[in-house]
């Protein structure tokens, strides 16, 4: 699992220090407070080790800055000289420095060496899986070869996800009880199952087979999780990153989604989520049983610096940009009802 993160001068963050929960980690905050960047950074660093490629290269292909990863250094009136990060997992310490100084090259610590140095044989113990906010399964055919062949500017997260989606299914006999349970929850919510023929995905409901381009986006979302689970990618070594799982989902489908995620957490999957959704937050809070869960509120102070307040309890999560706004709606309703000229 990922235990700690330190950041300095990275994208919108002047300085950030977080201790993570081994279970579900949920980030909220207004647009522009860096939620997605935290997820992308953690993913990039872990994926680099897992795939045995240089972290600088992985950061570039995930963030896709124009030019170089120097664009990831925080932009401020007084330019910082560089950005640094430090990620502590249960086994490793992975550090890096992205420099803006002329003539200096970005450096990554020796913590990476066992995995990425040319003739290394050591396998990174953690498996990062990122489900992107843009659901791509309908556009999957042709994407992978095109990505390999041409300079496409899609984030590599989408490429990695599709590669994972195209893996073969686990045999039921080697699937864990949790895997089978989650598959069942998701298939019930979908009303059918997902199959793949060549490069095309279909939703099969009874005798009908629907190509994904015609399937509701919310259902494709659930299908995305189903594929990751069915392909054996989410076990106790896995770390799942999901940016805005609520997008395209009618709130009614949130329940099976959250139940699945909580089951996976109980089986040892560490989960990172960024969200804007009140029902998602509420359902996590209401459905959690003995799950490890921590919330993080990202917000800007008066000087525009992004800060982070962690909380183990939803009620004390503060500032809560989402409920604050619901309160605002409540006040608006009172104003409109009682104060306006009818």
């Amino acid at each position, binding site marked *: 699992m990922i235990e700690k993160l330190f950041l300095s001068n990275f994208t919108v963050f002047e300085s950030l220090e977080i201790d993570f929960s081994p279970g579900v980690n949920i980030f909220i905050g207004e647009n522009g407070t860096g939620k997605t960047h935290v997820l992308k950074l953690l993913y990039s660093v872990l994926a680099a080790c897992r795939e045995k490629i240089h972290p600088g290269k992985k950061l570039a292909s995930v963030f896709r800055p124009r030019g170089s990863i120097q664009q990831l250094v925080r932009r401020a009136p007084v330019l910082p000289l560089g950005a640094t990060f430090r990620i502590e997992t249960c086994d490793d310490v992975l550090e890096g420095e992205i420099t803006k100084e002329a003539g200096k090259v970005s450096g990554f610590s020796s913590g990476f060496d066992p995995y990425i140095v040319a003739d290394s044989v050591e396998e990174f113990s953690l498996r990062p899986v990122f489900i992107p906010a843009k659901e791509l399964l309908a556009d999957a055919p042709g994407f992978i070869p095109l990505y390999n062949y041409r300079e496409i500017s899609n984030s590599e997260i989408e490429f990695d996800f599709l590669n994972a989606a195209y893996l073969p299914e686990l045999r039921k006999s080697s699937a864990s009880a949790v895997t089978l349970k989650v598959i069942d929850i998701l298939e019930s919510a979908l009303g059918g199952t997902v199959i793949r023929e060549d490069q095309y995905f279909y939703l099969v409901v009874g005798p009908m087979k629907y190509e994904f381009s015609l399937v509701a986006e919310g259902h494709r979302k659930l299908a995305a999780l189903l594929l990751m689970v069915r392909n054996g990618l989410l076990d106790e070594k896995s770390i799942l990153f999901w940016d805005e799982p609520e997008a395209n989902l009618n709130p009614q489908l949130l329940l099976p989604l959250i139940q699945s995620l909580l089951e996976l957490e109980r089986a040892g999957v560490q989960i990172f989520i960024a969200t804007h959704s*009140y029902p998602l937050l509420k359902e996590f809070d209401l459905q959690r049983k003995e799950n490890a869960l921590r919330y993080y509120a990202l917000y800007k102070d008066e000087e525009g610096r992004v800060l982070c307040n962690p909380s183990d309890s939803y*009620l004390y999560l503060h500032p809560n940009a989402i*409920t604050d706004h*619901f*309160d605002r*709606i*409540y006040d608006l*309703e*009172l104003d409109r*009802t*009682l*104060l306006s000229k*009818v």
Partner: protein
Amino acid sequence: MPRFLESDLIIDFPDDVNVVQLEKETEKVHGMQPVDFIFTHGDHTILLEIKNFRQRSDIKKITSETLAKQEIVPKARDSYSYLHLMLRDHNDFFLVFLFDSPLIEYIRPLLPVLNSSINRYLMKEAPEPWKRQYIKRSVIMTPENFTTYFPGISVTRK
């Protein structure tokens, strides 16, 4: 200064507000259960129902459907019937549900949704919707914000 006690709350009305406890007038009418107070506010007649939920046993009454369907809307409807029969229905009627409960902090963001539930029953209780919109609008308020919208009326805890 008319002063009333309702559950745990003390409500003080200014002298120039005509406030009535309908129950005193309707007690002999079998089956009629009105709201706690009615008073005039500008051009409107306010039907004020106050609920204080603190006991475990209250849980059944406070769920979204029961609260709207059984606890609040029938009282609003009875109050309207009474005032209509007494030719006291010239103004537009507003329903104010004053929700006093330590639970408010958990559900404050959801109060507008609960209000929609109340509105749904105000418009329709029978299989056919009412032909007459007898309550113009409804809102849910708390002791904390009541005075902001009704200046002069103070709501304090015993």
